[in-house]
């Protein structure tokens, strides 16, 4: 189904396509393609078809099927965060708030998208359940942690998807799979019903085939929620109207600390060309400085693991999830259930997070990292006094080979350099395709990242949409 959300919407409203035909088309595409791609963990076919029967196509997302990352719960569907600790053992008792909002807008949740277990990873190789392959080169990773969401959109097995982003988990897989990925500002979207990884960093957002599509989904899922006190009251502007404002006069910052050795030269070249394109459209280009950039990864991995160790304490084998049958007292039941249920990366992060919070080390690590976070945030506050948006690569390298980084977690963490600061500072960020690079005869997508002020999704969408209209790179498909 090579349809963008906007195209599908037009076809539904003109009557060229019925909601049932659209859902059947997606089911057929998944059936044909997903054996190789592995983006979906499961699809509730009957529920999707039943929803299509009653779909009202006049609603904002009426009749549009949307794939859902396996960290977001959908009532009466399985949810596992791609972990063995939940797989086959958990049926969600209610809808996440984003799912309620999608349903109210007429959309149809369709399919559970694979991910790194509990969203911990950058390649989806940490999924406890299955391998997902990059549709552009199936020997390569799709990125992560929302790798299944990006892969099914890139392979045209989905119209659009929801992902979640704690340190780049929407933007990075979108970049590596040639999709558009939007991480809303912290507080823009309710997390009620998202399985928590790091609560001061997590956001839900769309992975789509265009910025226009991303704007339509964000419009629906954004806004306050009585179930999540961190979802801000701030009004959500008409994002589709914002898109059309053009970029003339917008000030774009290029952080000198981001354009450094270590970026793949071909990626540098594509991003430089993208900056020239935005300049040609009337944007002003300024060099800026984010002096604490070199501390961002260390800060992130202390804060994220600390929060994860607390959030994952709930997996104790008592109320839901895996319970070991090899324990005869309660403490051993916790210890064995968690040992048997969690994968290596999750255990590694729980241990690191427990350590940085433990007595005697809290001030050295966690408290210090929170103070450095203040400095990183201030870098951006200062930068946004001079510019309206920041442009840089989404990733320093194109998609790597499956298995290539499996034994070196630190190397994998270092590739998050351009995406994590947005989470630490609460910014919004979008990745849009800016061309491809050729590796071993295959074209691999490159992502252009645009970062904006908190709650200023309108400006980054203006830039990405305007860039897409001029270049058409977002239309490229795997061959």
């Amino acid at each position, binding site marked *: 189904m090579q349809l963008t959300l906007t195209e599908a919407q037009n076809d539904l409203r003109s009557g060229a396509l019925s909601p049932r035909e659209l859902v059947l088309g997606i089911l057929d595409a998944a059936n044909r393609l997903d054996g190789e791609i592995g983006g979906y963990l499961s699809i509730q076919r009957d529920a999707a078809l039943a929803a299509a029967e009653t779909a009202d196509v006049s609603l904002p997302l009426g009749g549009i099927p949307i794939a859902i990352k396996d960290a977001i719960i959908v009532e009466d569907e399985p949810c596992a965060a791609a972990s063995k600790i939940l797989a086959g053992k958990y049926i969600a008792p209610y809808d996440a708030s984003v799912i309620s909002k999608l349903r109210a807008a007429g959309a149809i949740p369709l399919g559970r998208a694979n991910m790194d277990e509990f969203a911990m990873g950058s390649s989806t190789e940490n999924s406890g359940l299955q391998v997902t392959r990059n549709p552009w080169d199936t020997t390569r990773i799709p990125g992560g942690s929302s790798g299944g969401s990006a892969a099914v959109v890139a392979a045209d097995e989905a119209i659009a998807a929801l992902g979640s982003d704690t340190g780049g988990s929407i933007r990075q897989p979108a970049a590596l799979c040639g999709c558009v990925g939007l991480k809303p500002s912290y507080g823009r979207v309710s997390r009620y019903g998202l399985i928590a990884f790091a609560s001061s960093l997590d956001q839900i957002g769309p992975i789509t085939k265009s910025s226009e599509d991303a704007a339509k989904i964000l419009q629906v899922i954004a806004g306050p929620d009585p179930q999540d006190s961190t979802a801000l009251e701030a009004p959500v502007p008409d994002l589709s109207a914002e898109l059309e404002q053009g970029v003339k006069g917008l000030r774009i910052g290029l952080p000198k600390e981001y354009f450094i050795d270590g970026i793949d030269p071909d990626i540098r070249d594509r991003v430089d060309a993208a900056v020239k394109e935005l300049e040609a459209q009337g944007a002003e280009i300024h060099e800026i400085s984010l002096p604490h950039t070199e501390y961002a990864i260390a800060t992130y991995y202390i804060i994220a693991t600390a929060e994860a160790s607390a959030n994952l304490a709930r997996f104790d084998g008592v109320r839901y999830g895996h319970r070991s049958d090899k324990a005869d007292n309660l403490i051993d039941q916790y210890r064995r259930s968690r040992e048997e249920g969690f994968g290596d990366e999750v255990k590694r992060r729980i241990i690191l997070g427990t*350590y940085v919070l433990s007595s005697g080390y809290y001030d050295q690590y966690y408290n210090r990292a929170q103070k450095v976070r203040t400095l990183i945030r201030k870098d951006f506050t200062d930068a946004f006094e001079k510019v309206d948006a920041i442009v840089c690569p989404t990733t320093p390298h194109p998609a790597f080979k499956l298995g290539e980084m499996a034994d070196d977690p630190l190397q994998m*963490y270092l590739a998050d350099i351009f995406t994590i600061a947005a989470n630490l500072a609460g910014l919004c960020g979008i990745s849009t395709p800016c061309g491809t690079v050729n590796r071993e005869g295959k074209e691999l997508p490159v992502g252009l990242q645009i970062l904006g002020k908190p709650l200023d999704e309108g400006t980054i969408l203006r830039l990405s949409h305007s860039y897409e209209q001029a270049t058409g790179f977002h239309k490229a498909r795997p061959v």
Partner: protein
Amino acid sequence: MSAQKLDVAHIANLARLDLNEEEIATFQSQLDKILAYVEKLSGLDVEGIEPTAHAIPVFDVMRDDVARPGFGLEKALRNAPRRVGDQFGVPKVIE
């Protein structure tokens, strides 16, 4: 912030993870490398800097205390690894 050695076995016990010997050895070497990397934060002067817990701080968000339907007993218990009547069953805790 000198380079401390993280005792994986001890921390795993605090985190209620029953790691085997092989995991302890692998994690020890991987986490030592990660901790050596994060030591770079010790080079920064953070004297007088307030910690950031949330990027966009919000305080004391209140909503009206109105009763509304929950998802009920059966849905709450349907994922229970062991159910005893209308309760979650666990191994005996009190001797």
